């Protein structure tokens, strides 16, 4: 891409100029396409930053992740498109859920009378197994936030290939730091292997989603409809992902980029009434700056 700007009479651009020229070239190639908002950009960057800090800590808690981040901001982040896709998908899911949470809070504030507690034995009563599985799903979901409640990528949920790439990049950065020696290099390589092995043993949100789906058994359609009514998008995404044999992240991304007309087919395995989808359609439609793709029903690469 940079070669395209090496026209006669123009010096090789600085990284900043080069970046802006690339951005402009991409804009000129598709002027009508929507661009990232500042919020999307900041959220994705924050997610990347927390992810890199977590990867570095997993490799060795002594790594100065702040210095690593500063360095990579100057040179560019490794990970390429897989990292961008993971951060963007998580950021969009977060924006969607935050919007729903704000509206739910506004709704709760506008309700003057308290909602009556559920009667024992009503449809809200769930088996202990389902209750535990839902609790595990909530725990797995909350691992995808930092202590402030900002969105993050849980290491157990990250694609193994991306995780390996980032581990190796952090290890390479560390080896390049002054003062490193052969012993430290060997330790670093061992730490990469150990971290990869550890991730394989970890169960993340996909595992929790599968357990929740299994616990519900024939109650899945009912639970999915209730999740939509309550705007409990974590539960809906989890059930839809398992029903469609996709990962949680892939299903979240598919929903977030789906046209309204594509939602029924996307969620067909859940056997939901069309009417039950209305709150979902409304919620997605009101998400500002949402990018809708034509291939939402296709798996995310």
């Amino acid at each position: 891409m940079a070669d395209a700007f090496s026209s006669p009479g123009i010096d090789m651009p600085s990284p900043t100029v080069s970046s802006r020229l690339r951005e402009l070239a991409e804009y000129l190639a598709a002027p009508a396409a929507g661009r990232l908002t500042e919020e999307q950009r900041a959220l994705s960057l924050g997610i990347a930053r927390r992810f890199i800090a977590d990867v570095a800590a997993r490799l060795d808690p002594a790594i100065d992740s702040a210095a690593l981040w500063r360095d990579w901001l100057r040179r560019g982040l490794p990970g390429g498109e897989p990292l961008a896709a993971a951060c963007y998908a998580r950021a969009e899911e977060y924006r969607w859920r935050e919007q729903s949470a704000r509206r739910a809070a506004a709704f709760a504030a506008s309700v003057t009378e308290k909602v009556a507690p559920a009667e024992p034995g009503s449809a809200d009563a769930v088996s202990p197994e389902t209750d535990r599985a839902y609790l595990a799903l909530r725990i797995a979901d909350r691992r995808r936030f930092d202590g402030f409640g900002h969105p993050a990528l849980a290491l157990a949920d990250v694609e193994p290939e991306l995780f390996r790439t980032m581990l190796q990049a952090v290890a390479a950065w560390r080896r390049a730091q002054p003062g490193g020696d052969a012993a430290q290099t060997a330790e670093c390589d061992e730490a990469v292997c150990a971290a990869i092995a550890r991730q394989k043993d970890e169960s993340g949100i996909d595992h929790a989603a599968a357990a929740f789906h299994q616990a519900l058994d024939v109650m899945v359609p009912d639970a999915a409809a209730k999740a939509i009514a309550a705007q409990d998008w974590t539960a809906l995404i989890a059930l839809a992902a398992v029903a469609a044999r996709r990962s949680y992240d892939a299903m979240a991304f598919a929903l977030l980029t789906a046209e309204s007309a594509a939602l029924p087919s996307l969620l067909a395995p859940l056997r939901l009434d069309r009417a039950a989808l209305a709150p979902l359609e409304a919620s997605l439609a009101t998400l500002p700056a949402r990018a809708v793709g034509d291939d939402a029903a296709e798996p995310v690469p």
Partner: protein
Amino acid sequence: MMDERIVRGRIDRAGALLSADAPLLHLQQRAGSGLGKPLALPHLARLVALAQRLQRDISRPLHTADDQSDIHALVRITPDAEGADVEISDWRPRPADPPQVPAIEDSLATPQEWAWECDQQLRLVALRPGAEAPALPADWEGRSLSELFELQPDEDGRFPVLRALARQSRFAGQRVRAELDAGRTQMELSGHALFDATGRFTGFRGVAALAEAEEADSAAPPRADPIFGSLPLSDPRFGRRIDGALRGPLSRIIATAETISGQFDGPIRADYARYAGDIAHAGRHLLGLVDDLADLQNIERPGFQAAADEIDLGDLARRAVGLLAMKAEEKGMRIDAPRTDDKMPATGEFRRVLQVLLNLIGNAIRYSPENSLIWIRVDREGDRAMVTVADQGQGIAADQQAAVFEKFERLGRTDSGGSGLGLYIARRLARAMGGDLIVDSAPGQGARFTLSLPARD
């Protein structure tokens, strides 16, 4: 860098930003929103929603960020029927390093805190430590909040978190003890309620902050198997062991009974809920007795001394009234407290004098008829500073007035209101501070208890 200005904004009922001073509007725009659109700053939006739900002013630290800086500020939200006013002060932008990107947040707002979240059954779904916070206990996931933290009752024997659970509201000041690697740690929980789109309560989210260190006596580790028989009753360790052995189980009994009484897991038969309420009440009474016995053990040991703080009896009386005002209000009683300019400098230990006044005013509330008046006056006679608590109760006959200061003396009362140790302890404390506690009363004419202490010029 701190900005002294107040940044103001106005939010409507639906959560849209109607008007805003430049810094707030700028932030809203950088988050991809604008005027007339939903507030795009998640933390602020949550606080606004909370204030609207509670319909009361709230003041909180605010943390937000755009792609250029992290912003720490204090926000005061005043809700009304149409929405809420927002006033942001102490606006501290912290430029990111390098510019153009948010700074790395490697710690919580208060690095010593834990952030936590639980579901509607108080089971923990998230627990994250600040950079300087104690390490998390192992296996916290899915454990009950009351299992991980030993809940401690407040001064009224109640548990703020359980009350909040019943009301599905925010809470603060829930004292707890946690068993950590570093040993038993005193912490304080606060949190706000979470709801889904159908208005169903889904849990709490909050922080656990390290509390101030406990007194040496109560910080002693609990004895798993106290061998009471090997210690004489007069040994201070006997009292501490009883205290440690009883407090935990009683706290759990009260917590469980309140959970049942509040019907947090769904409706139960009304008489069962009432029985559970009785159990909680009795548990609180027993806990009060444990407190009194622990106090008794402490003040009766040889060499007990109270601190000689410079205190103002008028100020302490007003504080005590503030703490018990709700109790008096429940009985329709009025307390005529010293005016704010009524000062009476004296020498005595601040918390012990407050303890005596709480006992005197608490007794007055407990034993006076509904809708009656309690008055409190401060005065000075020579080198004595005095505070008098008078009520319109049934009074005490002259031949019984000395007896009320005896241990376990309740003048034939059999209700569960007290242990019969309060006035005994109060007088011992007064005398340990170089003062005294006397009563002046007659049957049918109420009682006047006067605490005197060395006056200070």
